[in-house]
């Protein structure tokens, strides 16, 4: 699916990356815990999150994330937008909550970048 269709499905605003809407995406990862994004998100995936600080952009760059979808109507700061422009990482914002965002994309064919984590003991 093209990023443009993702935008339409989520009725999203494109904050950064209007020139990248023809990019193809197939998978996504959703979390507000950046530690988990670093552990599990795969290259080329969409990142669905409610966190808007600059570290989201740094992490997206490190992981080769295709685009960031900010959920629950979150708006990125000027600093975050500036860094995203510099590193050429698209940011879209949607008013849908994380569950709805994931569900609507899944219904149209986007799948998780992994289905399950391996069976390891994790506290917390």
């Amino acid at each position, binding site marked *: 699916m093209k990023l443009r269709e993702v935008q339409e499905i989520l009725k999203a605003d494109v904050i950064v990356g209007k020139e990248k809407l023809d990019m193809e995406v197939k998978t996504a990862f959703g979390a*507000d*815990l*950046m*530690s*988990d*994004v*670093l*552990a599990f998100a795969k*290259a080329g995936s969409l990142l669905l999150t409610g*966190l808007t*600080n*600059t*570290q*989201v952009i*740094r*992490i997206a*760059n*490190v*992981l*080769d994330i295709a685009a960031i979808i900010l959920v629950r109507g979150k708006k990125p700061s000027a*600093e975050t937008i500036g860094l995203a422009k510099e*590193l050429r990482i698209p940011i879209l914002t949607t008013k849908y909550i994380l569950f709805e965002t994931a569900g609507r994309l899944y219904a149209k064919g986007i799948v998780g970048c992994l289905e399950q984590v391996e069976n*390891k*003991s*994790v*506290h*917390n």
Partner: protein
Amino acid sequence: MVAWNKLKTKVCTTENILYKNSFDIEGGNFSNAGAVSTRIKWILKQIGLPDDVVRKSAIVCYESEINIVSYARKGKINLTVTPKTVEIEVIDEGQGIPNIELAMQQGYSTANQQIREMGFGAGMGLHNIKSYSDTFNISSEVNKGTFLKMIINSP
């Protein structure tokens, strides 16, 4: 960011070392956290290493950088690139790790509220560094600092 031409002057002529440099990281400076890793990733890409080697190296550097910013007074990352490996040394001056075995466990963290609000502190950092590296070494001394050495193999 520096132009690639300028960067080339730092490329070693010594046989088998494609690139070698050291990057300072300031403890406690969250607004700039991750900037060194962004730069290292760019450098590795310019050298022309395979995407997954660049990505693994960048993740290892980023997790290490966040650890220094979160827990140490200051630190540095020494990067050495050879045709077959990316070597990453992380040296910091700070509180050190009293129990390395515990710190390596997934889910164990001593992160404060500020770190957690940024989405970190889930106790995945050192575990992640190890799992993305082909070789991993750690040593630490309480109230002195921590030393990490990772090697990522290039196919």
